């Protein structure tokens, strides 16, 4: 039994579907691809599938991750190829690798930092720089969270690691931000977008998650590097 980690992209064509929809879509694609999936025991057997931190509806990402258990051995590249042939536009496996045998289970739970790129128009770069400086100078940044449940106030300031202007072209400014994520609390990119008033420009704000990191493991390491490290030290187990 092998466990395969896949890093995937959720692109423009799929950004309006929820995390749960992505999960269902992947499960169906895996059945179409006839991957030798290991199923859970019990009345309602389903594939053993675990995911990295979910991506909010409307946001794209290229460092998204999930892990599957296979009943028999299949080269990670074959998993990637067969799955990609069955994925709808907007979802694509970028890399697949075997989880080394010494780790029984991938612990996506260790991921606690997410990096985003935000693009928007209608506000000049200098103005944005000033707003960022103002934002980071504050000791407390309260945001409302609720959805269906009663609203509550949360201070997201401790969850903002960095925010900086990357550049601007043709009136479009791009930002990079690193935010805490995961079970010990985090900030959502939309919250920072609103705190900075970026949506007040021409109304169009694009947000892309570029990286997920586990800061407690080794100082921030992108998922793709993890794969390289594993494949260097353990070799591709196929």
């Amino acid at each position, binding site marked *: 039994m092998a466990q395969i980690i896949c890093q995937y992209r959720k692109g423009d064509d799929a950004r309006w579907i*929820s995390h749960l*929809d992505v999960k269902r*879509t992947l499960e169906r*694609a895996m*059945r179409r691809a006839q991957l030798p999936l290991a199923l859970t025991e019990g*009345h*309602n057997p*389903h594939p053993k599938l675990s995911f990295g931190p979910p991506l909010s509806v409307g946001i794209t990402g290229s460092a998204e991750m999930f892990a599957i258990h296979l009943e028999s051995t299949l080269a990670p590249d074959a998993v990637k190829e067969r799955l990609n042939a069955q994925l709808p536009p*907007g979802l694509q496996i970028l890399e697949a690798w075997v989880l080394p045998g010494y780790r029984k289970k991938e612990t996506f739970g260790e991921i606690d930092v997410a990096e985003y790129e935000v693009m928007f128009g209608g506000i000049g770069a200098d103005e944005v720089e000033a707003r960022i400086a103002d934002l980071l100078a504050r000791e407390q940044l309260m945001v409302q969270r609720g959805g269906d449940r009663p609203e509550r106030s949360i201070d997201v300031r401790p969850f903002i690691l960095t925010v900086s202007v990357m550049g601007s072209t043709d009136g479009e400014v791009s930002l990079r931000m690193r935010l805490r994520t995961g079970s010990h609390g985090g900030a959502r990119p939309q919250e920072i977008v609103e705190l900075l008033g970026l949506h007040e420009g021409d109304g169009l704000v694009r947000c892309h998650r570029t990286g997920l990191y586990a800061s407690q493991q080794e100082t921030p390491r992108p998922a793709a590097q993890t794969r390289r490290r594993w494949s260097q030290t353990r070799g591709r187990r196929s």
Partner: protein
Amino acid sequence: MDLDLDVILPRVQKPARYTGGEWNAIRKDPASVRARVALCYPDSYEVGMSHLGLQVLYHVLNSHPDFAAERCFAPWPDMEQELRSRNLPLFSLESRTPLREFDAIGITLPYELTYTNVLNMLDLAGVPVRAADRGPGDPLIVGGGPGAVNPEPLAAFFDGILIGEGEDAILEIAEAAALRDRRAALDSLAQIEGMYVPSLYRHAPAGPGPLGVVTPLNGAPVHIPRRFVADLDAALFPTHQIVPFIETVHSRVTLEIMRGCTRGCRFCQAHAAYAPRRQRSIETILRQAEEAVAATGYDEISLLAFTSVDYHDIEGLVSALVERFGERGIGVALPSLRVDAFSVTLANKIQEVRKSGLTFAPEAGTQRLRDVIRKQVTEDDLFAAADAAFSSGWHRIKLYFMIGLPTETDEDVEAIGDLVNRLVAFGRGALGTRRGRLQIGVSVAAFVPKPHTPFQWMAQDEMEVIAHKQRIIQRALRDRAIKLSWTDPKVSALEASISRGDRRIGDAIEAAWRMGSTFDAWNERFDFERWQRAFQEAGVAIHDYANTPLGFDAPLAWDHVDCGNEKDALRREAERALSGEAI
């Protein structure tokens, strides 16, 4: 358009309803085809994508090299508001093309309470809602589906309404649209077998309610025969069904194993709308099941038929499916069961894979009334079915009943309570130590008279009478194992008046829509007082259409539609019902 959508989509619920791109969706180059057809469903994406008919037509059209079909569903009110406030037209999912730019717009007519959505979709598309107001640049607007057996309420809004099945006719409709000349296309539509072109007929009311004659003009046929596919086994069936990203009403492979129903319940329109009974062979179904599972990746197969148990070798079929797919973790579902022990034995076969509730429809509480409606089910059948279900491990059963049936008395209604209570006692005994888990769902709807059935002449009970009968049942069913649910009698009254409607009801539908009614089939959106105002504005009364018995000799608004049932035969059947003859 795309830019505007990026601004709109974050503001609406479930944005993926409007973005398409699902697995198996087909996108063709518009330059490569002679006609583009937008297939519309007048309800939400989740409801429409669970409708097999739409997927059939989609694949018939797209399998043809000369035609392209795209989809569109009724936008939810939040999306409608965004579109209207920005002056954006309704668009197709596949290529985001404004609906107006298609050569034809085909709209499914699934149920009377979706009709305001039909008008709303046309309006959002920028197409005049009344056919008479359309000009050379407008697409051809064609309707079809179960509602077409009485096309009159929607006659004013459609260029053509297909009576019957669309698998073959849709290609002929596309040919007409390919002429790209409104006049010529309308002439060509009129030549299609089963096609009703309302502008070629004049409606002359002969009294209140659905009394009156629809007369052909300029040599149009007096009777429009309902179209049907002769060989279901050979008919195209979409195995590459579109797999929605978002959760829909049914997320599974649907296989139609049989079409038509021969049971002949006197209240039911299925016989008129879907006869004759045709079946697919086991070989064909197994082949289609393999293809569909491979093409979709679904983990459930559902067998579609009015009563799947009436399929010629349902045991053989279910065994073969379970044997083939069970160990791959793919379940088989059988949504339509008969009230008998055989059905339970059959359900037992499939519960090895997945367990779901069992539903039976005795419809009435006494044998006398079941004979009147020709529901060929006895109490013994019901108790045998329940016995088989309880002893096979089920502890949850759902029962469907109707109230307000012709000849019904308070005793018949009291008998529903009595029957259910005896079933509860029986269930407790049969379940023994598991008795605490017993659950009997009781769902009670009001009888709705439907055109082309023996009961088309009968009156629906007044709402106060329905309320009185509901109270009788409510008083009788107090056990905690019973879960009682109703269909709102106001909904049933509206359904009846549109179902038996003529062209004047079309005016009421338009008035209701202009006052803001859409998505009437959704409880939270249904506003009966507004509908009453709309009826009043149109100069018609719900009472005349729903609650008034019609004379056997009177001309009816749907007499020009030929569903294969002779009016005389329906009348004899109605008379037998009134005299209590079961057969």
